[in-house]
């Protein structure tokens, strides 16, 4: 299981590195223009560490991801994603994951991000992708859907959440300084969160 998780984290690193300029452009419109640069720096370091070490347990992989992002990103996304991954490392097992596990993982990630950033849904942040994605997983679990359908629904909901940030006004982070002028732009954090969720799901399926 650890090998597959390592592969997923390596793919996630590649996706973020490939989207460095896109994320930076989104951030330049409403923030300080470093989201892609910062995340790519963190994930590049993660890639090096993943490639040079062997792992036997999933929680080690998520802990390494957390600490590497915290130490190397240099912007708010470091502590935010870092704390999300750190929380995930505390609950993830080495068993095959079912929908209950995925709901727990998503809730822990959200709790970690909220602990650091104090944001709620609707504030034009990464949580506007992640909270609807987690809600979708919960609904699928409550409706007894199979894992594949649940993950496909989750991905679709995450994409909608990301796109919904275009019409939102930012009330957290550097984008909030722009007030109403933040409306009309897709949030970079919501976009990086979508890219991660998309890579996790497509690699898992």
């Amino acid at each position: 299981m650890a090998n597959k998780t390592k592969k997923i984290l390596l793919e996630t690193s590649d996706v973020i590195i490939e989207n460095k300029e896109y994320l930076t452009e989104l951030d330049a419109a409403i923030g300080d223009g470093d989201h892609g640069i910062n995340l790519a720096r963190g994930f590049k370091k993660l890639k090096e560490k993943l490639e040079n070490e062997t792992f036997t347990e999933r929680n080690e992989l998520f802990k390494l991801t957390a600490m590497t992002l915290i130490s190397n990103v240099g912007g708010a996304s470091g502590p935010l994603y870092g704390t999300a991954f750190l929380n995930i490392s505390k609950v993830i097992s080495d068993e095959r994951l079912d929908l209950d596990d995925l709901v727990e993982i998503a809730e822990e990630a959200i709790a970690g991000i909220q602990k650091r950033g104090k944001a709620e849904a609707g504030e034009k942040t990464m949580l506007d992708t992640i909270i609807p994605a987690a809600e979708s997983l919960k609904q699928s679990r409550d409706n007894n859907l199979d894992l594949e359908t649940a993950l496909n629904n989750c991905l679709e909901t995450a994409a909608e959440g990301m796109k919904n940030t275009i019409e939102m006004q930012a009330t957290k982070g550097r984008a909030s300084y722009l007030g109403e002028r933040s409306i009309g732009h897709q949030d970079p954090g919501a976009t990086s969160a979508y890219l991660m969720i998309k890579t996790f799901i497509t690699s898992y399926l």
Partner: protein
Amino acid sequence: MVNILIISHSLKIAEGTKELAEEMKQDEIDIQIAGGINNGELGTDADLIEQKLKSMDCQDGIVVLADLGSAVMSFNMVKEWLPEEKQNLIRLANAPLVEGAVLGAVEASLGKNLEEVIATIEEKSIINKNNL
């Protein structure tokens, strides 16, 4: 003596703020900075903040001044990693960086305790610049 840590996204802001604050010192206190990332790029370095908080003399407390979002966020995260007794001796001042650091340097170097230094910074750092 209470010591001071200045955390900024910019190494230049951190260095300049320290320079201004040092000028007002009435006695020896330790003013340290954690500014920027990778020796001069803009950003906050959580590892550097951790290293400073661990190495600084914390016996009478440390007052922290930080600028924007991730500086505050990184500080809060790193603080939680420290032992609880040390956490209680490290306080983030709810104040603008430059004014807070200058006021803090004066108060701390006059031998005020942690509570007093924080109270003065928070009370006096928002000044009416149109009516000095």
